[in-house]
């Protein structure tokens, strides 16, 4: 599947790169900045919110990764596993409430 899909993607890039006019100029290749000359480049500081969201995503995505095997094998011992899941959720809920109260998820 990857092979076929990768083949299509590469072929499309190649065809697109080969066909079509090649009339590049300094102005045409400049970064977009509403028409005025670009000031500085884009490698500068951006809001820390994105970093926090990425970090929270990692934490809660690991939570889903823990839940999946638990859900798939849930019928093996439902009451026991349910208690385990509740405990796990409570621990994470404490962290979740903490980030809520800290206002991490309030943008601006």
């Amino acid at each position, binding site marked *: *599947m*990857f*092979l*076929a*899909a*990768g*083949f*299509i*993607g*590469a072929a*499309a*890039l190649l*065809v*697109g*790169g080969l*066909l*079509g*006019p*090649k*009339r*590049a100029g*300094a102005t045409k*290749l*400049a*970064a*977009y*900045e509403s028409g005025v000359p*670009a000031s500085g*480049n*884009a*490698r500068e500081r*951006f809001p820390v*919110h*994105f970093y926090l*969201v*990425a970090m*929270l*995503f990692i934490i*809660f*995505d690991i939570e*889903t990764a823990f*839940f*999946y095997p638990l*859900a*798939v*094998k*849930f*019928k093996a011992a*439902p*009451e026991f*596993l*349910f208690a385990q*899941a*509740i405990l796990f*959720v409570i621990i994470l809920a404490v962290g979740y409430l903490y980030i*809520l109260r800290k206002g991490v*998820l*309030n*943008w*601006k």
Partner: protein
Amino acid sequence: MDPPVVTFLKALLLCLVLLGVFAYMTVIERRILARMQNRLGPNRVGPLGLLQPIADAIKSIFKEDIVVSAADRFVYYLAPFISITFALSAFGAIPAGPADSLFGFDPWIVDLDIGLLYIFAATSIGVYGIFLGGWAANSKYALLGGLRSSAQLISYELGLGFSALTVLLIAGTLNLREIVDLDLWAVHPLLWLPLAVAFVTFLISGIAEVNRTPFDLPEAEQELVAGYLTEYSSIKWALFQMAEYVNMLTVAAVVSTLFLGGWRGPALLDGLIPGISRWPLVWLILKMALFMFLFIWLRATLPRFRYDQLMRFGWIYLFEIALGAALVTGAVIAFVI
């Protein structure tokens, strides 16, 4: 199980079909939007505008393929490649009929025991395509657009993951073929409510995951230029668009597979035409078409979220409701059934 050569050919065929569907979806979407806004939509190129996607494709291939001078060349090319490759790959695990029903071949590409995880993983890698695309061009607008898109995508992936938990609890397997074979809604009436809630949260997260209105912040062209697409032209831009539409198709297919019985049709119709509920392809395509229409309908109806509303909605409401549905399901299975 098919021989590898057949699998490869099927994969190639599926990719081409998906791209063809993408091409016609653009026209269908424009025409339906036009109808909803009381106008006609593209109807000049060919009968009913049916040659429009071909004209668009030829135009976009012959456009000048610009590489912005400040860009990181390798990553600039890599990003659309990642986007389209993994968008196409994700579709391979969706079953479209019972085994051996497609002219003696299986109507799926791969039958993975972890099919659902595979689809989530493939769509997550698509986020790299978007973020790297925004980063590579070395333009402030593209960078911020890419950051916003990737933050939105990863936030709503949690909603997807937790909504799927409800299905997994009931089905007890990650194999999409087995999930379809089992009739989720027939298990126990007490599970209908959490299933319905999970269905809605999954659908909403799915819509956000493919940047459709009301979650189309990344391409809020009046606010952010064009987000991560700002510096892309020609075929590379088209590849990002393709990836987005293919992702829409994948979301439609996954929602129907998980919650609506996938390729199985209503058993009631078997009385009229024997075996019609087990025809391959037909029902899956019908269900996907239904969801695609829903996406277009929403686009014509709803205004866009603000970014802070979007993040709060994803992290607070969707997340908690989806987790709550999963916990209720667990409780019902543990203490009632």
